[in-house]
């Protein structure tokens, strides 16, 4: 980020502004629950190869937006493109195979699989996952070895090596978060969407996780993550999108967004309320 001026820095901080090289383009996206609009976005572009954070108070529609974009929930209306191809009405697994990998706010670690198996599951294009090849170890042994090596590297990065052969169900909440990120990385994402990756992770590990996230963007992966705490976001992201009541109320680089009046009103007001609770 420091070395070169990124094209994203030339983009004006306006809601719905076009980006030079977007990975995700959303148009007229709507989703209501019981008549209440949970998500209502006119136009939103997410830039490729940078870290974008999605912030907003509770119930702003961040997770719903993730669910819609990744195909886990059906939109009432709207279109969106991923990596230059239409992604509307596409099943979650298809989108994942195209490189859009997400994690979940409530971790979905596979309790009765080992930590290593959890990560291995993330590997794409596995020969051994085909029914016809599965019984013949020779057909997938080599690929499995390579995947295993990569998985072990990832686990080491996230300080999980010692838990490698334990069942994932024995991990702590924070460790599960890390495991889920490791698993997502195993899938070689083009775009990785992390839903509150830092929640419940101890501060030291959280720091290391953040470093990984910026490193990813440096390697060319696009990162979107949902976060609650403004402090976390500002130092980490290249671009911030602020949601409130389902709508994008502001977007721009961190130093601009934190001074935006609408954000201060809607978001920081909400933050304070949260603290008071």
């Amino acid at each position: 980020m420091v070395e070169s001026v990124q094209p994203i820095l030339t983009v004006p901080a306006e809601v719905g502004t076009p980006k030079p090289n977007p990975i995700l383009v959303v148009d007229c996206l709507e989703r209501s629950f019981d008549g209440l609009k949970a998500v209502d976005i006119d136009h939103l572009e997410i830039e490729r190869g940078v870290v974008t954070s999605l912030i907003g108070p509770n119930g702003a529609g961040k997770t719903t937006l993730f669910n819609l974009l990744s195909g886990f929930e059906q939109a009432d209306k709207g279109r969106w493109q991923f990596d230059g191809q239409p992604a509307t009405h596409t099943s979650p697994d298809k989108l994942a195979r195209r490189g859009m990998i997400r994690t979940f706010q409530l971790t979905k670690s596979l309790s009765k699989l080992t930590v290593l198996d959890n990560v291995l599951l993330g590997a794409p294009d596995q020969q051994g996952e085909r029914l016809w090849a599965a019984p013949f170890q020779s057909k997938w042994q080599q690929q499995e070895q390579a995947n295993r090596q990569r998985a072990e590297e990832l686990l080491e990065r996230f300080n999980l090596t010692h838990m490698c052969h334990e069942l994932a169900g024995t991990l702590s909440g924070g460790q599960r978060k890390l495991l889920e990120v490791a698993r997502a990385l195993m899938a070689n994402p083009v775009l990785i969407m992390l839903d509150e990756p830092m929640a419940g992770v101890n501060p030291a590990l959280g720091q290391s996780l953040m470093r990984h996230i910026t490193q990813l963007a440096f390697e060319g992966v696009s990162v979107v993550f949902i976060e609650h705490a403004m402090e976390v976001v500002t130092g980490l992201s290249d671009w911030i999108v602020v949601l409130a009541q389902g709508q994008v109320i502001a977007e721009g680089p961190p130093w601009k967004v934190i001074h935006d009046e609408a954000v201060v009103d809607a978001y920081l007001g909400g933050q304070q309320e949260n603290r008071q609770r």
Partner: protein
Amino acid sequence: MEFDIIITNAARAAVGPEALILALAAIGLNMHFGYTGLLNFGQVGFMLLGAYGTSVAVATFGWSLWLGVLLGLILATAFAITLGLPTLRLHALLFAIVTIAAAEIVRILVGSTDAIGLTGGPLSISFDAGAFYDLNPYPDGPNDRYGAGTFEFTGQQLWVMTVGWTLVALVSVGVFLLVRSPWGRVLKSIREDQDAARSLGKNVFTYKLQALVIGGLIAGLGGVLDAIKTSGADPNGFRPQVTFFAYAALLLGGLATYIGPVLGAILFWFLRELIESFLRQLVAQTWLPDAIANFFDGAEGIISVGMVGLALILLMLFRPQGIVGSRNEMQLNG
């Protein structure tokens, strides 16, 4: 009380054809529920189609026995696909009730008088399984017996058992090869959390359907063997409780273990026959008051099935992982 007879009777049931048919049904269920988390309560439907496919092909269509076996297996596969395509997206409990209903529908249709011309309807259907017994290598004269005392089989029975247990072994090895592969890993991930599997690019529906077909095919094979063993089929042999017995065997042995369903089926029949034999001996005892003897006389089967129910309850309370399962794994619920 002749305990040696009770024990040999139980041992005889434990290795007999019923146990190996139950083992196949339980192995199939293990594929469905143990590895993939599909709560299939209609396993008996697959067995019925295997048995009736074979019987109808030979008795009604006049095909050869081997074509009949093939038809039975095809029907079981077709049942898995037609059942699975629309219902695999349902919530686990709804899937359970739909499968139990589907198996009942098949049983009622097969057993209706409208189907007499095809399946024999409410009467049983019978056919000539000679092609199978022609291959019997064991001399099967009227005086040929294998074993000792009451643990004794005819040549025909021994042949059915040889073929059957060989198939159980082959199927178990096949399941082992499949489940230890990355394919098996995907199945287990679906059992744990299908949204997680989906988010990593796995086509959950396809894997579930594959598992449903494979497990159904294994149960269908059990049905085929049942038809060959009895040279026919009877709609009353395929009531929902057969599925529950298969669950009992699977849970007794241990969910999601390779050897569990086989051990479970063996133990299931061992215990059932143990109870029945014991009761038969008991009512013959002279010291037993007549009133009690009369009460138990003829009720051996009723009591042993009730004991299956009791065993299921106790198993869930005290050893939900079964004989060979791991306790730690069972405790990681959700």
